[in-house]
Each structure stands twice: as structure tokens, then as C-alpha cells.
């Protein structure tokens, strides 16, 4: 009984005719596999396009902003009759004055004045210490805090 059934199955299989693979199936399968590979990859074409687009836009924005700012700056400077001059004066008095004139209410104003006359390019603190010792003496600032 069992042999009979096996024989039937074999016959059935033999009766099935092999048909040729449909046209383009191989390509379709390969294309789909490639597409799936691409979609799993780090950079998709869309991302590449976005990246290139953004880089170009950034470059354009920065260049245009720089150029426009420069011309605008010249016009603004012309309105002030200024000439874009550079800072040259060094003055070490600021912090000492904050103490001399005094009270806490001056600090903001003096900060502004201080920074205007400040020379930040050199060893400011060292020079200040020297100035304090030479001109004022270490005790002077404690005694002049009158106003």
C-alpha cells in the first residue's frame, strides 16, 4: 500500500512539465535585491541629493551674507563718517578707578569705560600689579573709597 502511494507521487511529479522561467524574472529579482540593498545602505540617493543641496545652499548663504554685510557695513560706516580705525591706546586705570570712584553703582558704567580703554592684548594683570605697587602703594586703594 505504501509502495503504491509512493509510486503515484513519483508518477505525478514526472507528469509535471518544466516550463521556462518568465522573461526578465532574473533581472527583476536582482533589481529588487539591489534596491533592498540600497535602502539598507547609510546614504540613499535622496539623502545624497539633500546633502549636496544643503551644502550648496550653505555656501551660497554664507558668501551672499558676507558680501551683503560688507557693502552694508561700508554704507553704515560712511553714515558715521568713520574709517574703521583700530584700537591703539592702552590704559591701565580702569580697575583702579572702579575702586577710587567707588561704590558698587559705578561698576557697570566703569566696566564700559574700562573696556573702551583696555588693552587686552598684553599681560594686563601683571602690568596692573606693577602700576598699583609703583604709583599707589598697596594701601592706597583701601583709603580712597570715598564715593
Amino acid at each position, binding site marked *: 500500500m505504501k509502495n503504491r502511494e509512493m509510486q503515484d507521487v513519483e508518477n505525478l511529479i514526472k507528469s509535471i512539465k518544466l516550463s521556462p522561467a518568465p522573461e526578465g524574472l532574473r533581472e527583476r529579482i536582482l533589481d529588487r535585491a539591489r534596491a533592498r540593498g540600497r535602502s539598507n545602505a547609510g546614504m540613499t540617493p535622496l539623502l545624497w541629493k539633500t546633502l549636496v543641496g544643503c551644502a550648496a545652499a550653505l555656501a551660497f548663504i554664507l558668501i551672499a551674507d558676507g558680501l551683503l554685510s560688507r557693502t552694508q557695513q561700508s554704507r553704515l560706516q560712511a553714515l558715521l563718517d568713520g574709517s574703521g*580705525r583700530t584700537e591703539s591706546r592702552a590704559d591701565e586705570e580702569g580697575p583702579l578707578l572702579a575702586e577710587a570712584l567707588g561704590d558698587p553703582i559705578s561698576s557697570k558704567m566703569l566696566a564700559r569705560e574700562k*573696556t573702551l580703554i583696555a588693552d587686552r592684548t598684553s599681560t594686563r594683570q601683571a602690568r596692573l600689579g606693577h602700576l598699583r605697587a609703583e604709583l599707589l602703594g598697596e594701601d592706597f586703594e583701601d583709603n580712597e573709597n570715598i*564715593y
Partner: protein
Amino acid sequence: MKIFTKVLVILLVVVTAVLLVRAVFNYAMGKKLENYLAEAKAEGIPLALKDIAPSCPDPDNAAPLWKAAEALFILPDEKDRKLAFDTVGAFFDGKPFDEAARQTLARLCGKNRRVFELIAEAAARPCLRFGDWTKAPWAIEQVKAMKTIQVTRLLGIDAVLQADAGQVREGLEECRNGMHFVRKLMDEPWLLNNLVALSEMKVLLICFDRIARGRGIDSATLAAWMNEMNFDFWRHQSVRWIPTERLIGLEWGLKVIGGKPGDASAALSLLGDEKGIDRFFYWLVRPVLKSQFIWVHKRYGDLEKIAPEPYYKQNEFLNKRNLERVPWYYRPTGVLFADFRGVFLKEAALEAMMLTTKAGLACKIYKNKTGRYPESLGALVPDLLPEVPIDPFTGKPLIYKIQSGELLIYSLGSNQKDDGGRMTYQITKLIMDKDDDWTWREKINP
């Protein structure tokens, strides 16, 4: 990896969008600033510091004399330094000299006699222009304020020492020279000069009080000194620092928003360290800065309007308009705006000192004439005073009292409380809680 890449690209899109918005805003704000300045210029508002430069021909200029005085000024020897400076501090805090300190200071004053003579010569010149005002604000040389403070205080002490030694007229004259010189500092309308002048005028007023109080001085001299107590001059000169600050702000602002390497470093250093991150930050917020400079410029315009008013009106206006409030979107830039309330307050304190001194002198003249002090300040009007002096802090008449053998004329000061005429020169905060009156005090029978 895929998500990471996507995030990076999205970030790039966001950055691009932000920078696009920034660029548009930057251009628009620049245009707005340009239009604003063009309009201001058309209205004749000065936009360059040289437009408000003090005019002072060389023969009239007191600056060369002051420069010579600066160079000649001698500080005490090492061994006397502490004693001298301790004594100066104590003197301006109302304490008497002890004999050792008096001798040390007298020696120091003697060494600086030529300096005081130069100050007298400078005081007699019509004007003072120390720096070259054709330069940029930060390149204009300014009076060395520390030296000014040291010289003025020593000069004031010298005047007191002279008066104590019996040379009252000479002492008063020296004090007057000092005051005239200090006033000249304000010819150059820097805020710093203004602060130094206010401070040193108060110092010299203390010295004058020490000389005049309790001393019999003839009425003509007292009347001449009453004329010295003219605050209108100070108010007129003081308001000149506001346009200067406004114009410095503009020039400085343009430097910052210009952002040129090298040139910008000086300007950027005003706002923060010269690190790359600071430069990037101020490049990024440049549109906000442009908008902020318009705002600051307008605020200074408001200040110019109220500057000539007495302090109680200024205070009212400041509280009503909330001028000190900086909008949140301007705060991160760190742009500084002068503490004008503090300056107004210092001016008011000087005005109070001058008014009480003037009223005190009028009372002395009244006593010279009648043999007694007046019952009230009203008795001095109109012969000695045009009107009863008004306290700049309250808008009400100065307080006048005769109590415990003393004559007291005082202003209520910044706290606007009656502290019984008690005062201190050790100002430690904007509005003092106590002992905040500005007082002329004189013993009735010295």
C-alpha cells in the same frame, strides 16, 4: 548607521534653514539700522564723535598745564605712604588729623607746591581739551583719572591745612582753584570725566565745609562763595556725557557688527574674550546686535530728554517708562548700557551738597547782618536766596532745624527718609538704608 546618517542630514537641513533665516534677518536689520541712521543724520543728530568735540584753541587750553602737573606730582615716600593715605581716607570720613599725620601731609603738600600752582594756572584758562578728538573714541587720550583724584584730594587737604594754620583766605582760594579745575574736566564730555569731576567736587566741598564751618568769614567772601554753588553749570555740563556715550556706542557697535578680523578683535574684546567661540557667537547674533544698537540709541535719546530735570523727576520718569528694562532677546549679547540712574543719583547728591552749602552760607551772612540765624529758610528769600532751595531727591524744601545748639540744613538723600541730618561719605550701595542725608551743620555758638 542609517539613523545616524539621517540625523546628520536633518541637522544639516536645520542649520541651513537657520542660517538662511539669519542671513535674511541680518540684511533686513542692517537695512533698518542704515535707514535709522540716515534719518538721524538728516535730522541733524550728531553721529560722529568729532561732531561734538570740545572746541578749545591752544592758547586757552588748560591741558598742557595739567600734563605738567601730572608729571610733577610726587607721592609720599615708602615709609610715609601708609600714614598719608590712611589719614586722607580718615579725613574724608570726618575724622580729625593727628599731629604726626598733619606733619606728614604738610611735608607732602610742600613737595607738591608747584603742582598746586599749575592747577591754579590751569583753572584760570578758559577751557580744557586733553585728547585728539579726530581719532576714534578708544584712541583719544583721556586725563589720567587716578592722578586727578590723588592731586585733587591732596590739594583739598592742603587748603584745609593752610586755613588751620591761620591762612583762611589762601586756603579758600586754593579750594576755589581746585573746584574750577575740576569743573574744567567736564569740558571733555566723557562719562568717566563726569564721574571723576562729581566725585572730586564733593571732596573739595568737604574741604570747603571744614574751612568755612564755624569760622567767622566776612559777608562779601561768603556771598562770592554762594555764587560758586551754582548747580546749573553742572547740570548743563553733565548732560553732555550722554551724546558721547551714544556716539561711542555707535562707533563701537559698528566695529562689532563689522566683524573684520583684526579690527574686530578690539571691539569683540569689549563683549567677551577673543576666543573663536565668542567671535562665532557675535557673528551669529549680528542681526540682533543691529536691532539692539537702534534700541540703545533711542534709549540715550530718552535720557537726553530727562537729563536736565531734577532727580525726583528723573526718578519718576525712569520708574514710569521702565527705561532700565532690557528685553530678554537682547540680554544674551552682553551689550552694556551705562548705569544712568547711578549717574543721576551722584549728580543729585552733589546738587544736594551744593544747595545745603549755599543755604548754610546764606545763613552765615544773615547772622553777620542780624546777629542770629534765621527762623526758617524762607527768611533768606529774596535778599539772600531767590527761593527756598528744593531738595533734588524729594522735590520739597530742604529741611531746616536749629536743635541741640546746632544749625542743620539737609536734604533727605537717596532713601528719601529723614535720618535726622546724619550722613556718611562711605556710600556702599545705590540707595543707603540709613545716614543718607546731605547736611550743612554748624554750631550756633562755636
